[in-house]
């Protein structure tokens, strides 16, 4: 089985979000970059499936050279090789076109992605790639087992989940508890240095919805504390001041 996992290179979840250049650029000063947490779940499950089926696992990122350490980390976690499409990810459609092209070329049986990126939170790339390739796409997937060419999945829906059955090839946008995050071990880190990381060029420049300007939400006012022995006061405030009851 050939598996592809698409990973984002995104600011750590604790990063302070700031912008520069008159609010037109993300300020990466002091920001640590990580594999997107949802992509990390997808990768962890892919490593398990690859080991079960003695298949091959490729990771892919659409990004510039600063993504390379993130791809190396995925190799350390267990991917066999990596592909970087050498372009800044301009919008979901731009990214989807690159992934669709190189995924087709690689003829993967299973394509796993994260449920959504944690920078632009689109939750769209898997569906777009699915439509571009004429492959079914499912998201958010919280359980995925492969038995021959049959795939059994659980997909989260509002207030519950649905169980699904489909056939390979397919695309899934993953979230927990599909697998537990894997931490690279020393051997993984050593071997990652020599695993192939192929840089390829973008196949299209087309975009549809690029961001032009950024803005931070207004600062929150100070909390109003209510004494623990006077909870009725809180109810009054919620009713009369905040008007939310």
């Amino acid at each position, binding site marked *: 089985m050939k598996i592809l996992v698409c990973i984002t290179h995104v600011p750590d*979840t*604790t990063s302070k*979000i700031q912008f520069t250049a008159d609010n037109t650029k993300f300020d990466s000063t002091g920001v640590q970059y990580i594999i997107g*947490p949802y992509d990390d779940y997808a990768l962890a499950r892919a490593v398990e499936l690859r080991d079960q089926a003695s298949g091959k696992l490729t990771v892919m990122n659409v990004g510039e050279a600063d993504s390379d350490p993130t791809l190396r980390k995925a190799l350390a976690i267990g991917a066999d090789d990596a592909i970087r499409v050498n372009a800044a990810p301009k919008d*979901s*459609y731009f990214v*989807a076109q690159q992934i669709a092209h190189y995924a087709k070329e690689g003829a993967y049986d299973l394509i796993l992605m994260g449920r959504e990126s*944690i*920078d*632009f*939170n*689109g*939750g*769209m790339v*898997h*569906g*777009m790639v699915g*439509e571009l390739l004429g492959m*079914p*796409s*499912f*998201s958010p997937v*919280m359980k995925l087992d492969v038995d021959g060419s049959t795939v059994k999945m659980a*997909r*989260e*829906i*509002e*207030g*519950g989940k*649905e*169980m*699904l*059955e*489909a056939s390979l090839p397919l695309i899934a946008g993953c979230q*927990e508890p599909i697998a537990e995050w894997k931490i690279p071990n020393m051997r993984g880190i050593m071997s990652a240095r020599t695993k192939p990381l192929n840089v390829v060029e973008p196949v299209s420049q087309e*975009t*549809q*919805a*690029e*961001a*032009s*300007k*950024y*803005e931070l*939400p207004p600062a929150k*006012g100070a*909390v*109003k*504390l*209510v004494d*623990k022995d006077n*909870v009725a006061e*809180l*109810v*009054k405030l*919620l*009713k009369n001041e*905040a008007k*939310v*009851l």
Partner: protein
Amino acid sequence: MSILVYIEQAEGKVKKTSLEAVSFANALAAQTGEGDVIAVALGTIGNEELASVGKAGAAKVLHGAESKLDAGVIQAHASAVAQAFNLVGAKTLVLAKSSLGDAVAARLAIKIKAGLVSNVVELPKTDSGYLVKRSIYTGKAFAETSVTTENKILAIKKNAIDLKQDGAAAQVETFDVALEDADFASKITSTERATGDVLLPEADIVVSGGRGLKGPENWGMVEDMAKILGAATACSKPVSDLEWRPHHEHVGQTGVKVAPTLYIAIGISGAIQHLAGVNSSKCIVVINKDPDAPFFKAADYGIVGDAFEVVPKLNEALKAEL
């Protein structure tokens, strides 16, 4: 010309977030002169319920009444909505963000060659160009996005607009959906859904518990509060990891993102990853025994105290007042 809205149902009722999408489209049509708002509903659903979508601002509802569409089969819904889009000659599709909505919108974007913007928080600026404000970095910032395609899809975030409730009944028309076997290549074998409860992503009030509650046996008082307030229950990630609560209740960076008018956090420290899922709430109340818990910095109101003392008292006070 018209704006098309994809509306979803749960147990035969149109979702409130879908009605917000209709209200949004109604205001957008008034702004851009795109004519009427037409909603498209799929699967078995009563005529009266569909006509009531008019209150939120739809002139007409196209009903693809095929029972095969009762289940949210992603590919089939995407092709049905694409057919409706072409049928009415729309240029803009509006829908509410949801588990099914997102998956359908992404495939549609390719089918109808539309620029897609997700997490839209307010009406676009359309006087020159087409600028859409969306929430990014999990609620920690906004981006103004310029859409350059002729066809457009806007997936709106909860509370992007006030619900319109004074429209006239919509005209309901059935339309024949051409379905292909390929659209049903995947099968939904079963569905598990908490019934009767308020759905978390839709809820106006959310009562949420964290590891400070010590164990699943202590959730009675949380459920009591939810019942008194007509709220949905939620939890922090460790709580669902420990299986004290089901996974679909976990809010935060890696869980459900909620935007209620009132979010009550009990025994939750307020880690940045938790806040990422709740920072769009209108009003946040925090109950925590540690005055230095980071959640107080993100809260509007707070009580420093032991949840096991405060919550039962608060429940009594709420009952007395409501």
